[in-house]
């Protein structure tokens, strides 16, 4: 086994020799005795896997349960919806307002109120 083949073994099966099948394990162990590069690669892979095993941060699930339980009666809220500054509904309202300004669209009161409400509330469609 050479360094390149050893790298393939690491990438395929990870850095724990227990997962390496024979006879590749014996070949790898022979290479590790003589190759500094192989040793460095093994050390790096084991560092990756050790860090990936780091415990996840604590997570409060109580809010999740409370909020999700309200969802059968309420429409879906999009992920990151609060971050979106412009929606199609808002663009529609802007277009309507522009039409009013140039006198091309004689608006009714209910049309204006409806478009503004739509813009404020966002789309009512279920995007999921």
């Amino acid at each position, binding site marked *: 086994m050479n360094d390149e083949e050893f790298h393939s073994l*690491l990438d395929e099966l990870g850095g724990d020799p227990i997962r390496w099948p024979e006879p590749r394990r014996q070949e790898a162990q022979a290479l590790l005795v003589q190759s500094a590069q192989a040793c460095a*690669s093994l050390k790096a892979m084991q560092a990756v896997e050790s860090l990936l095993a780091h415990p996840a941060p604590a997570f409060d699930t109580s809010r*999740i349960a409370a909020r999700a339980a309200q969802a059968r009666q309420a429409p879906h809220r999009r992920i990151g919806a609060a971050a979106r500054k412009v929606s199609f509904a808002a663009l529609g309202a802007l277009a309507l307002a522009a039409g009013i300004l140039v006198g091309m669209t004689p608006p009714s009161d209910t049309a204006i109120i409806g478009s503004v409400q739509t813009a404020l509330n966002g789309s009512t469609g279920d995007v999921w």
Partner: protein
Amino acid sequence: MGDTDDALVLEVARGDRLAFARLVERHGARLMALAMRIVGNRAVAEEIVQEAFTRAWVQAPNWQQKGEMGRAFAAWLSRVTTNLAIDQVRKPRALPIEDAPEPPDPDIGAEDAVIASQKLARLRAALATLPPRQRAAIALTYDQGLSNSEGAAALGTSVGAFELLLVRARRALRIAMTEDEA
């Protein structure tokens, strides 16, 4: 009320909020770890987990009708969370990768703790450069402890494709950490 996923999902289908809270308590932390690993941002990860559980709650009555219950519930949650997280990462707006402080490990000294923290930060940076599906493959394997076949199912792909994602991800992370060690 039984305490298996099967029993709890049946209760959730009937609108039992306590059973739902029990399922959230049981699966929430692992889904949070999964989403966090893929999106690298706690607030967005929480939204994703929220959305996954919201779908579970909304769709629970349908599971009862279709006979799709607790046996597959954990896998379903993993699949939904993974897909939501990948979709989120693929959006053009960049998410800030958090460098949240880790809880101190009482078994190591202060100097070793600093080195470990620096390595973790480097790993996070390397993870952030991976394509979303490679990140998901890493998360499903190392955070969720899934086999390649289970991971492939969660990602909606073949076992061979999943293994290829893992190989590429491991290679990229190994090289990143090797370069940092050099």
